[in-house]
């Protein structure tokens, strides 16, 4: 047995195989992207510990995540915000974390997706469990995990096949995801339609919609099917518990001198109809604003936002998100909701 020989041949074969694998996926339209995971969130959550009164933290669900673009915000206000919004998440657990576990008393922008903010305070429910898992990861992460994440960044940024996202998208290409695509028979009816990734995130946690989702209506429709699925299966909102939980933290945050701003980003199509029907503005948003007694921005109240259309009903395209961000920042500056640190 010549082990050394075997080893060298194995290295050569695996290097060739991996190169072919990478080239194949690139030929299929994949390109290197970062995974939007707990480790990335935690890296930015750590920045809140040293943030000053001039800083802005964005919380909320995917709408605040996709629709507020960090570079445009920075261009308008002179300061890059800390983006901590997350997909499919209620903002309550993360706001609770910021209020109770930090001394931060700058500006917190909470993006309001009514179906998520008013959903539940039950710890095992998806809109709560997902952001809470991020908070827990931040608090419990080991030095080894931090190091793993830092080492994985250059790999994720340079290799298309590194795509084992925590979200387990239907179009991920790690081995587990590829095996999941194989369907034999119909022993179990899969009720949830395939959920494809439609956003890409940068190292500063700027999320934007992919061109594919923006330009390909058929692809956008697959995302719409997922919203319909979630909408149909969603339990009724728990306004009383969510409001009580949130307002308690609001008071605490205001007492510390913090500045809370509520923003309702756009939605369109059937989703907006469903939201208007299931979570009417007067009953939910207006009441929240009244009780929180903080500055608020609802897209329906501004001419410049009224005609924005979300390609998959829930999030703005990258281009529209840039416009939305710039205009929103202008409105906030004009209202003195936030201040600029820009110097001319």
């Amino acid at each position: 047995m010549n082990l050394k020989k075997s080893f060298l041949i194995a290295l050569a074969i695996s290097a060739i195989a991996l190169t072919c694998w990478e080239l194949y996926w690139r030929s299929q339209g994949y390109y290197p992207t970062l995974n939007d995971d707990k480790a990335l969130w935690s890296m930015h959550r750590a920045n809140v510990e040293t943030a000053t009164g001039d800083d802005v933290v964005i919380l909320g669900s995917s709408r605040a995540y996709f629709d507020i673009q960090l570079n445009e915000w920075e261009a308008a206000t002179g300061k890059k915000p800390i983006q901590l919004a997350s997909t499919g998440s209620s903002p309550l657990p993360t706001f609770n974390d910021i209020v109770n576990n930090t001394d931060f008393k700058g500006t917190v922008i909470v993006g309001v997706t009514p179906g998520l903010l008013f959903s539940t305070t039950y710890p095992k429910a998806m809109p709560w469990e997902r952001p809470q898992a991020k908070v827990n990861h931040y608090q419990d992460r080991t030095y080894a995990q931090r190091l793993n994440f830092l080492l994985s960044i250059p790999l994720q940024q340079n290799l298309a096949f590194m795509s084992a996202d925590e979200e387990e998208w239907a179009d991920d290409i790690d081995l587990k995801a590829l095996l999941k695509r194989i369907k034999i028979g119909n022993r179990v009816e899969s009720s949830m339609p395939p959920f494809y990734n439609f956003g890409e995130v940068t190292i500063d946690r700027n999320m934007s919609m992919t061109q594919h989702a923006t330009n390909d209506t058929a692809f956008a429709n697959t995302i719409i099917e997922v919203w319909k699925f979630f909408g149909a299966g969603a339990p009724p909102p728990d306004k009383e518990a969510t409001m009580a939980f949130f307002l308690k933290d609001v008071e605490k945050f205001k007492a510390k001198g913090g500045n809370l701003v509520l923003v309702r980003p756009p939605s369109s199509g059937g989703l907006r109809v469903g939201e208007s029907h299931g979570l009417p503005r007067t009953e939910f948003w207006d009441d929240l604003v009244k009780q929180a007694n903080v500055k608020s921005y609802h897209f329906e109240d501004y001419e410049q936002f009224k005609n924005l259309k979300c390609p998959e009903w829930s999030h703005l395209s990258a281009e529209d998100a840039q416009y939305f961000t710039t205009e929103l920042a202008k409105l906030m500056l004009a209202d003195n909701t936030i201040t600029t640190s820009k110097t001319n």
Partner: protein
Amino acid sequence: MLFNSLSFIVFLVIVLVLYYSKLFKWTSKKRMLLFASYAFYGLWNPPLVILLWISTVVDWTAGKRLAVEDNQRKRKFWLLLSMCVNLGFLAFFKYGDFLLENFVSLVNSFGIDYKVRPMDIILPMGISFYTFQTMSYTIDMYKRKIEPARTFLDFALYVTFFPQLVAGPIVRAKDLITQFYEEKRATTNQFVWGVFLLTIGLFQKVVLADTLLSGVADDVFGSSKLLHGIDAWTGTLAFSGQIFFDFAGYSTCAIGIALMLGIILPDNFKYPYASLGFSDLWDRWHISLSSWLRDYLYIPLGGNRHGITRMYVALMLTMLLGGLWHGAAWTFMVWGGLHGTYLILEKLQKQYLPFKITKWNGVFLAFITFSCVNITWVFFRAREFDTAWNMIKSMFYLQTNGEKILDSFSIIKVCVVIGIMFLCHWIMRNTSMREVSQKTSPWVLAVVWAILLFLIVIAQGSGEQFIYFQF
């Protein structure tokens, strides 16, 4: 730090470069290994390194005293001190909440309304492994079976040696400390074989356990529904494979990494799922723990020296405590109790219904053993007795309206992986990977190796923790 992580690859490269550089003499290399081992552990939770230090200092002192002390009472004192510290750590960190919870239940059962908040104690990674390893040193010293470690550095490295620190193999002092006395360098063949073992271990963990089996096991055991029999069996088989590949994967990595440093660690698994009966199983599964329990628990409890009844009691107690070693829950006790029962039944069968094992009935016997082992895994994996009982009912079709939660491909995937695993264990049960590889052409070995590497990389993995770390 996990073997299946990027940080470990960097860590290992740095350690190997320093180890094989000509910068250091052997003592400095051992210091470097010791420091690296503390870093390996501390990158998880730095303050808990203090526990390692305490265990090291106490057992070093006890061992040193035991080497020179002739007074039997004083010798007992040093042994008890070592055992109290090590078992005290285990009792507090691992069983603290469990003991408290059961105490509260007991008090409540007498009608006393007593409530107490759980202590939520953090479980130091691998505490069961390093406490057992270091206790074996003082017990062997007490029994005058071994010589004391020559230097504190040798002893500290024995307690902390990073490849096997957090999940074994639990190595005896005589097998490891003595290897630190002379400078060790792996030969080229040893080094490359170490890399091969590391590849095999990572393949077992990342591809087989985490990618192919864990999802099905998690879905089935995480389900609150009463399941269809096929789903329950598939989930159990998946866990059976997952825990083997996870734990054997860790041991294989550990043995490979140590070999890359020129240090030889003992085998911890020898194709256990092809065992012919349960005595055979425990000679093949987690060998370092089962031999520890045999030498330091079963034999001191009397072993087979005081008649059959006493032997059965010793056997059952050993297996019950072995179950409890795995985790602070009654389900683990049941797991141990089932294995104890199997062992007793096997001894009875050998006494009253002996038969010759041939190559024809052997595979059938191995299959029966494997099936019985699977039943025990239900209690090992289920967090609650209700879940375990529901699973057992489903597996034996005691309910007809069980829900189907697994798709056909998942069932086929698990059956294929477990089927191949069982056949491999059967084919390999009387040989070793080393022997087989020696008979294999370098090109065939290279292609297999390349496939393993390729699958590890494309599986990517999410750096999931090894199951046995929690023990």
